């Protein structure tokens, strides 16, 4: 183990834990809110089961607005909102708020796009068998789109890791923040490189896992 890693051992573990918390909460938000939102976005499209021009336009606009914000500005812009629900705008817990917002918008769009790929005929067959909208979502759409949903989540998680690196601006901590403060700003380039390496390993692992799972569950 390089000496510099040993010296900063506890700070490194701390920053890894912070990254895990920030990314973990983002993943939860993506699945619990982004997945239903993306499904609704898809279902309200023209020609779909819950076609509704107004609902679609509003959801579409909201997702686009959140996604087109430069992320740093979104964090700053959301400070009053964060303060409202967390009680403070500073720290790891506060950092999860803007991360969750972007996570929801990011994954919702990818969910919508995966569902578009489900053949129209499968939905018609389900309707002809007397399926409800709920049946169609859980027994047909999610089953048929599952590898796309997994690949989309993989892409999203990797983006969340990237987004989480700038959460230092609101004291969110994390690996990226540690690399900047201890590595870059204190001229310990070696330490910075090690941190980049750690993130690279994480990203590789996540991508490998996601791709493998998506391949195994794809029977098409």
């Amino acid at each position, binding site marked *: 183990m390089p000496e510099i890693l040993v010296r900063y051992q506890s700070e490194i573990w701390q920053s890894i834990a912070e990254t895990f918390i920030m990314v973990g909460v983002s993943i939860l938000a993506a699945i619990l809110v982004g997945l239903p939102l993306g499904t609704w976005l898809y279902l309200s499209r023209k020609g779909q089961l819950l076609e509704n021009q107004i609902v679609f336009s509003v959801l579409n606009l909201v997702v686009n607005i959140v996604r087109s914000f430069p992320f740093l500005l979104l964090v700053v812009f959301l400070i009053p909102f964060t303060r409202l629900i967390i009680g403070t705008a500073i720290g790891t817990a506060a950092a999860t708020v803007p991360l969750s917002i972007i996570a929801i918008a990011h994954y919702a769009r990818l969910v919508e796009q995966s569902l578009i790929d489900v053949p129209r005929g*499968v939905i*018609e067959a389900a*309707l*002809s*068998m007397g399926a409800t909208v709920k049946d169609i979502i859980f027994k047909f759409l999610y089953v*048929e789109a599952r590898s796309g949903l997994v690949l989309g989540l993989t892409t999203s998680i990797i983006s969340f890791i990237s987004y989480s690196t700038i959460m230092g601006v609101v004291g969110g901590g994390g690996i990226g923040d540690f690399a900047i403060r201890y590595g870059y700003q204190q001229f310990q380039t070696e330490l910075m490189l090690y941190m980049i390496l750690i993130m690279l390993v994480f990203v590789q692992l996540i991508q490998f896992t996601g791709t493998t799972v998506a391949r195994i569950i794809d*029977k098409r």
Partner: protein
Amino acid sequence: MITLSSVHKRYGQEMAVRDVSLHIRKGEIYGIIGASGAGKSTLLRLMNLLEKPDAGSVTVDGDQLTELSNRELRKKRHRIGMIFQQFNLVANKNVFDNVLDSLKLAKRPKSSWETRVMECLRFVGLEAYRDKYPSQLSGGQKQRVAIARALASEPSVLLCDEPTSSLDPNTTAEVLRVLESVNEQLGVTVVLVTHEMDVIRQICHRVTVMADGSVHETIEREPTGVVTIDQNPSWFVEQLREEGEANA
């Protein structure tokens, strides 16, 4: 069994089905033939309300479909099976689970699942394929799985939308044989939409020729295989007449 009265269906400016009335008898194999764009698929999809008519009424087995609530319509659909040109199986589910979907949606008791699914697979001759996925099957086998799925909830009618149009002649014959036994052994009324003359010739008892959204005419095949025709024969009728003369 199925009665359409003065049914109209419009897409934007275009009339897909105009003023169609017809009656399909219980236990027959009823063909609907026409060139593409003649409105025959739309007509079929009106029979389980996948398309809602703009005017007119659709009655299946005594129930006027347009009068049913959403819940009643879903229940009714368990008794109206449907198969499609592209089979429309769930690619991520194996053969068994595809057929099982139909039982789950019809809310059949769990204890009956295994027996009923296997019964249906045996009927179409695919009980050995229960664990295969659709991508591992031929087109004809996929269509037979789709037939098993449609039959699982014990429908009284089977609607077939171009069921053999993406199959080669051999597998077409195989699928038609299955449809014929669905009709003969299970007593299911079969309504079959196609643009292929041969399909009509092989299994249909009566045929409606559609052109430009309307019923051009309805033809009855006699037991000898000879076809009686009214005046104004269309292109399809001409073909049928030649066939009839050749047989006579």
